[in-house]
Every structure is written in structure tokens, then in C-alpha cells.
């Protein structure tokens, strides 16, 4: 018997059904992460080197749109859902109702996104921020998502434990919320758009809503489950967890116009969004108070969990504070806003997914990730790269906002002052990407450790005509 066959029996029978779909989703997420980050690096490069890549497929706008769609709808959504499906099967002690549909869903989702990248780069964007993919591809991705997500809802309905764990609330919320947010937003922006600014408001409802009510709860589900597992302690306070969940649920959907403060919208819409944006500091604080402690720094998973929680604390509070009108006046339209978004997506969401993946993947495949040095490089380069990139945009963006709003300096000199920060940002992103390449290399080594012995056996069989002993 080979290694893998031996250890996979350590999975409970109901957990076995989750293995295929979860590995499938995580593999997709990894590929999209690498593609998306490469596109992000190129887009960042073009901001300080406008003369390079003078091709229509490589305008800053097209690269940014392709990168954002790949990173959000590909990497973050599939990675988060992969962890989520596993947690539901594991916590609910229930098999996935129809794991084949999850695999099928992931496949058509990946096909649509694969088609979407060249479509966006060749200029087929809808021009709606956050929903740039053409409606037809959006519908296919929605279908793929529903096939995957239905397994999640069914697993909660079939839950065989007493009461639900916090991770299960967050996942149920996320899976149902995104189905509604994505489907209705496709209708109100792409298929039957309202006139003028209504499209921008609905797109804002999608962008903000999908972050606070889909990506954030999926990441929080992973943290609420794995942080206690990594520390060996239970949650600091079991009363704070439902409060964090319901405050996120209440305020998360009302932040639609936080990206359009001062814009051409009815004043009450902006006021409501600003208020909700500030109130989101509540779930951010409740979750980090409950989970953050100096724990588990010895393991790769523990370090990513720490990193993710810190990014959530600073990024989430930063979002809440920049919703304030006085801060928004200074920082709106600057790189500072981009810094916060990157901190939340790359640090918080991907950090949580990696923390979970470093525990989960070895369990699913029955082997540890083969190279410890590559794992260390992954943590170190991710943290270093992201800190450089975010700090460059935060400081540069602050100076940019100050110069734009409180001095009479002309735009050309403001951009000249900003240039070193733009360069530093690209360098930071490149370091971050290198960290993910290290992770990818580790995964390739892991796959090779399964494939090579089998291949060697096959080759030996062909050469000698006899069956040699299986390689260890």
C-alpha cells in the first residue's frame, strides 16, 4: 500500500466526499492567484512607466480589470469556497450532497473565467467597475457558483451536530448573500441597467457587498475555525462571535456608496453608506478581539492566520475611518484607497485562505508540503512584499491627497512626487508574487511526489516487462 492510500483513511467517510471538490477549488484558486498577481504587477508597472507595453491589450484599465476579476472571482472566491465546503462537511459531520455538481460547477466557472481574461484584455469590458465581464460570461460563472454553493447550503441543512459553529454561520451567510448579490447586480447593471449614476450605485452595492458579505465572511469562517485549532484554546468569548456575525450582516450591505462619497448621488444615499461604513468597525473589532493573540507563530498556518487578522484589523479600521467625510475628502481618488483594498484582499482574505490551506491540504492528500524552506519563503515574502506595497501606496496616497486638495500644486508635479511610491509599490507586489510562486513550487513538488513514483513504476514496467516494487 502506498503512503497516500494509507493516510487518506484518516479522513472520515463523510469527509471523503469533500476531498475532490475542495482540492479542485483550491487548485483553481492557486492558478488564478498567480495569473491575477502577474496582471496586477503589470498594471502597477504601467503607472510609473507609461511608455512600456504600448499595446491596446495592455492599457492600465484593461490590465486592472482583468486582474481584479481574476483575483476576486477566481482566486478569492474559489479558495474561500474550497475551505468553506471542507469546513461544512467536517463540522456538520455530513457528506456533500452531490460532490459531482461542485466539480462540474468549478469546471464551467473556470472555463468562463479563462475566456474572460482575453475578452477583457481585448476590450470587451462592460465598463462597470467590479462587473467588467460580459453578461454572458457572468451568467456562466453564476451558474458554476450556484452548483458549488448549493452543496454548501445542503451541507448546512443536513448538519448532524448540535447547534452551529461560528464558521457555519459565516459560510451560510456568505454563500446565500453572494448568490443574491451577484445575480441581482448582473440584472441591475449589465442586463437592465438603470440610467446614468444608478449603474454606478448598483455596481458599488456589488463591490462593497461582495467584499463585506462574501469574501470577508468566508475568510472569517476559516479564521474562526482554524485559530482555536492552532492555539489549542477555545474562542476568547463565545458571546462576541454572534455579535460579530450579525453586525457584519446588518451593516455590510449598506456601504454601497462608500466609494462615491461626494459623487452625483442623492445625499441620503451617501450619508447612509458612510454611517454603515463606520459601523463596520464593530465586526472588525469584535472578530479581532476574539481571535487575535500571540499564538502559533511556530507554524506556517499560524503565521498566516496572525498576518490575516492584523491585516483585517488595520484594513477594516482604515476602511471605516476613510468613510468619514473629512478623511474621504483628503484620500478619495488617491492611492490610499487602493492600499486599503490590497491590504484587505491580499492580507486578510488570502492570508486566511493560506492559514487554512496549510492545515487542510496535507490532511486531504495525506502528505505534508514537501519543502519547509519554500513554506518559510512563502510567509516571509508575502508579508514583506505586502507591507512594502501597502506602505508605499498609503504614504504616497496620503501625500497625493494632501497636494491635490490642500495645495495649488499642479497635477504633473503631484504625479512626479508620487512616482517613487508607485515604483516601490510595483517592487512590493513583485516580492509578494515571488512568495506565491514559492508556494506554487511547493505544490508542484507535492504533486510530483505522487505522480513521479507512479510514472517511474510505469516506465520500469514498460522497460523490464515486469512489475517492480512500488517506490516509496
Amino acid at each position, binding site marked *: 500500500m502506498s503512503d497516500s492510500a494509507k493516510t487518506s483513511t484518516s479522513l472520515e467517510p463523510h469527509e471523503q466526499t469533500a476531498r475532490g471538490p475542495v482540492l479542485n477549488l483550491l487548485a483553481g484558486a492557486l492558478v488564478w492567484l498567480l495569473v491575477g498577481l502577474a496582471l496586477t504587477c503589470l498594471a502597477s508597472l504601467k503607472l510609473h512607466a507609461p511608455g512600456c507595453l504600448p499595446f491596446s491589450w495592455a492599457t492600465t484599465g484593461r490590465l486592472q480589470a482583468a486582474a481584479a476579476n481574476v483575483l476576486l472571482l477566481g482566486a478569492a472566491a474559489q479558495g474561500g469556497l474550497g475551505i468553506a465546503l471542507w469546513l461544512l462537511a467536517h463540522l456538520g459531520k455530513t457528506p456533500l450532497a452531490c460532490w459531482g455538481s461542485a466539480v462540474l460547477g468549478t469546471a464551467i466557472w473556470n472555463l468562463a473565467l479563462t475566456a474572460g481574461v482575453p475578452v477583457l484584455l481585448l476590450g470587451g469590458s462592460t465598463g462597470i467597475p467590479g462587473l467588467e465581464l460580459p453578461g454572458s460570461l457572468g451568467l456562466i460563472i453564476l451558474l458554476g457558483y450556484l452548483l458549488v454553493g448549493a452543496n454548501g447550503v445542503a451541507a448546512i441543512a443536513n448538519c448532524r451536530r448540535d447547534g452551529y459553529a461560528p464558521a457555519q454561520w459565516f459560510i451560510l451567510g456568505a454563500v446565500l448573500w453572494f448568490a443574491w448579490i451577484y445575480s441581482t447586480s448582473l440584472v441591475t447593471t449589465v442586463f437592465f441597467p438603470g440610467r446614468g449614476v444608478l449603474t454606478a450605485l448598483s455596481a458599488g452595492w456589488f463591490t462593497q457587498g461582495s467584499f463585506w458579505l462574501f469574501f470577508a465572511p468566508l475568510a472569517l469562517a476559516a479564521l474562526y475555525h482554524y485559530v482555536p485549532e492552532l492555539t489549542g484554546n477555545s474562542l476568547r468569548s463565545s458571546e462576541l462571535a454572534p455579535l460579530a456575525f450579525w453586525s457584519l450582516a446588518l451593516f455590510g450591505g449598506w456601504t454601497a456608496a462608500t466609494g462615491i462619497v*461626494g459623487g*452625483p448621488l442623492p445625499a441620503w444615499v451617501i450619508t447612509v453608506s458612510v454611517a454603515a461604513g463606520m459601523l463596520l468597525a464593530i465586526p472588525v473589532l469584535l472578530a479581532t478581539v476574539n481571535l487575535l493573540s500571540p499564538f502559533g507563530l511556530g507554524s506556517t498556518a499560524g503565521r498566516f492566520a496572525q498576518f490575516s487578522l492584523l491585516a483585517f484589523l488595520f484594513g477594516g479600521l482604515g476602511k471605516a475611518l476613510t468613510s468619514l467625510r473629512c478623511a474621504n475628502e483628503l484620500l478619495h481618488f488617491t492611492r490610499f484607497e487602493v492600499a486599503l483594498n490590497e491590504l484587505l484582499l491580499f492580507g486578510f482574505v488570502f492570508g486566511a485562505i493560506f492559514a487554512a490551506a496549510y492545515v487542510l491540504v496535507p490532511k486531504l492528500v495525506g502528505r505534508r508540503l514537501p519543502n519547509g524552506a519554500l513554506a518559510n519563503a512563502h510567509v516571509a515574502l508575502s508579508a514583506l512584499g505586502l507591507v512594502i506595497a501597502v506602505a508605499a501606496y498609503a504614504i504616497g496616497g496620503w501625500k497625493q491627497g494632501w497636494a491635490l486638495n490642500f495645495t495649488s500644486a499642479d497635477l504633473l508635479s503631484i504625479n512626479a512626487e508620487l512616482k517613487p511610491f508607485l515604483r516601490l509599490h510595483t517592487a512590493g507586489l513583485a516580492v509578494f508574487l515571488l512568495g506565491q510562486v514559492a508556494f506554487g513550487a511547493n505544490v508542484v513538488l507535492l504533486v510530483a511526489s505522487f505522480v513521479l513514483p507512479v510514472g517511474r513504476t510505469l516506465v520500469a514496467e514498460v522497460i523490464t516487462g515486469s512489475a517492480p516494487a512500488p517506490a516509496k
Partner: protein
Amino acid sequence: MNHGPLLFFGVLATLAASWLGLVAVPRQQLGNLDADLSTNAANVVVTHPPARSGEATQGHAVYVSLGCAACHTQQIRPENGGSDLARGWGQRRSVARDYLRDQPVQLGSSRLGPDLANYGERLGTNGFNLVRLFDPRLVVTNSTCEGAPYLFEVRTVTGEPVAGALATGESGRQMVPKAAARQLAAYLASLGSSAEVPEAHLPAKEEAK
């Protein structure tokens, strides 16, 4: 938190409330806005927002397709919300009515480039200089805007030069703007929303009151 149905309905109710509040109700409030007669800064009666030529409408699609909104906004914030008016990017703040002809609207969220809400009005009668599109640094030495040389093609021209064509340095060879370049230029020249509206007054009218 142990009641499945309660959790389920709570989850749906919270989102439904925000959807009603920030998607459905604004659609009810703004969905029936329409172009109306108005007066501009020179006190001439105009339709606002003005109808766009076919070429400019096609130019809007080019603007969307190239992703110009990655660096350019098209929105003027009110006086107490930033320096947009002080920078001369507009005479009054933008209002929802200004965007009725834009589908999809290109508000933008980054100001690495100047705001373009009233770009056409700033251009004046000369119109848009196509050289800026070919390579912005030929016009403004340290511009950080990227050029779009792919919107031009080199052609051998005999006789009269093509309107809007750029010289290449070789005699008889010209850099001729493709249709998309001319459309984008027409769109940029059409950008402007300095007409009096009930929601936001022009400074001159404000003083008169």
C-alpha cells in the same frame, strides 16, 4: 444561534433590506430623471444634458473599452468636499442629471490624471489634439498618461494630407488616426456639464440670487 430557519431568514432579511434601500429605492427616486431645458453660463437656453453626436457616442464606447476610467474621474465634488472646483475642473458640482447620456456611466475612482467631467469645455474651440492620443509626452513633456499608438496607422498619402493626420518625418508617409481615435477625440470634446440645474447652481447665478 442554533436555529437553522432563524439564521436563514435573518441572513436573507438583512440583505433584502440593504437591496431595497440602496438599489430599489434610488432607482425609484432617480429612474425617471430626464433631459430638460436649461440655461448655460452664457445664459443661452440649451438641452441638458446635451445630445451627443453619433461619433461622440461611439467615442464613449472607446473610452470604456480602453479603460480610461482607471486614471480619470468624471465627477466634481461639492465645494466643501475637496478642491475640485478650486482646481477649475468644473463650475458647479456634478449631479445625477448630468449623466443621463452616459451608458455605462464612467465616474472613475482614481485621479492619477485630471478630472474630465468638463474636459470639452476646457478644450475650447481648438478641439482635442490627436497627438496627445498618439503620445502624450510629445505635447506635455512629463505627462504620465499612456499613449495609444495602436489607434493610428501609417499610410502613404499622395496629394492633400488627410485631415487630422500626423507627420512621420518621411515625405508622403502620414500617421492617420483610425476611426476609434477620431471617435474618442469627439467624445472628449463633448464632455461638459456646465448648465444651470435646479440641484446645483452655477456661480454667476448664485450671486445674482
